């Protein structure tokens, strides 16, 4: 690795071991870099003079005492609170506990009660969304029923294998739709069931269209 005087500051600031070695090699023939390196290293050596790691067990004794005091203070805080409680006559303790339970119960009821504000409007929104879905579903069903009524004569009188296959498919679809509607009735908020039902209706609609197109 080749380094020169221009690299010195960068290496002193953030040099790798290889760069330091290269700088040392360069410094052997460069008085200025040699002087800089010597002074730089001398500072690190001088820093050792500020190291005084003598044992001091007396300090640990003081620290341990402080830690124990702190621990006791924390425990005492809890015990003091408990002592205040214990100092109260049993009758009052029962009354206070009962009052606390009552307050908690009232607070619980207050928090969980149906709110005319946000939570009520949420429920209202949910209900209105569901009603909207059901209304759309009904309209959709009506349209499909109308389509089915148009296709029925051809399907009933069909003798071709294609029409027979359509009839069979529609029977399967109707039975799946009935099943899904029953499920959706039991669980009206289940969006997945609604999507399934919609897919079935779309399939039925497409099949009926194909039946009518075949007739033409």
């Amino acid at each position: 690795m080749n380094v020169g005087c221009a690299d010195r500051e960068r290496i002193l600031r953030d040099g790798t071991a290889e760069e330091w070695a290269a700088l040392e090699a360069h410094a052997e023939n460069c008085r200025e870099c040699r002087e800089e390196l010597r002074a730089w290293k001398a500072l690190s050596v001088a820093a050792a003079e500020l190291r005084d790691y003598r044992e001091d067990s007396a300090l640990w004794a003081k620290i341990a005492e402080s830690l124990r005091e702190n621990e006791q203070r924390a425990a005492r805080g809890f015990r003091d609170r408990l002592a205040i409680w214990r100092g109260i006559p049993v009758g009052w303790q029962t009354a206070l506990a009962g009052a606390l339970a009552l307050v908690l119960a009232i607070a619980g009821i207050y928090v969980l009660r149906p709110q005319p504000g946000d939570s009520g409007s949420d429920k209202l929104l949910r209900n209105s969304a569901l009603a909207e879905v059901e209304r759309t579903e009904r309209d959709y069903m009506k349209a499909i029923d109308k389509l089915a009524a148009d296709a029925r004569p051809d399907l009933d009188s069909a003798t071709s294998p294609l029409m027979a296959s359509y009839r069979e498919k529609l029977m399967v679809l109707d039975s799946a739709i009935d099943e899904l509607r029953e499920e959706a009735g039991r669980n009206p908020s289940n969006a997945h069931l609604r999507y399934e039902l919609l897919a079935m209706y779309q399939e039925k609609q497409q099949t009926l269209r194909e039946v009518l197109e075949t007739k033409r």
Partner: protein
Amino acid sequence: MGSVGLTLPWEHRISPEGGGEPRVQPSEREERNRVSDKLSEDAALAAGCLAGEMRAYERLYQVQGARMRNLARNLLGSSSDAEDAVQDTFVKIQRGIKSFRGQSSFVTWTFRILVNTCHDARRSRMRRKEQAQDDSEGSAPALEPRAPGSHPSLRMALERALQALTRHQREVFLLYEVEGFRHAEIATLLEISETASKNTLFQAKKALRSMLEPPRSAEAGGAR
């Protein structure tokens, strides 16, 4: 602050062998080994302290106490203030151990508390000084005599020069060069980037060098 250069040149003040090699960041493998070695001890200390075991605190003191006290003394310039700071730090560790999330090593976390405790101590000492209208020395703490080292005059000169650095430069220099922390640890400890730590150390050493290095003419005379 003017130059506090010593009369002897660097060659006479310090022996070149041992400790003169520059510290560079360890390689990835060395770093992994070092981390895995210390991880179990560090985790055990944290777990023990969290469980409120006095033995864990004692172990922490055995392992890091001297280093903590040394750093506090270098930051505060007073042995008694340093002891108070270390004592406060242990109590703060006990109070705050539940908030230790393990984002840094436990030891780094404890030193972060120590550095902040030293900041608080410095601030309250400055307030006390202001109240006592004793601002003759500014914010620089009075330096106390310490155990004699191999170069007491050099140590004193360095201590004086350190007081002329910015607080950040002083902290990074002490943490890196004296206490042996790595830049990554200093970055966590002082909430700065690793690059900022490296740059600050560079600036600190440059400033110290200009303060400690005797003028060329004096050096030439002393190096005979």
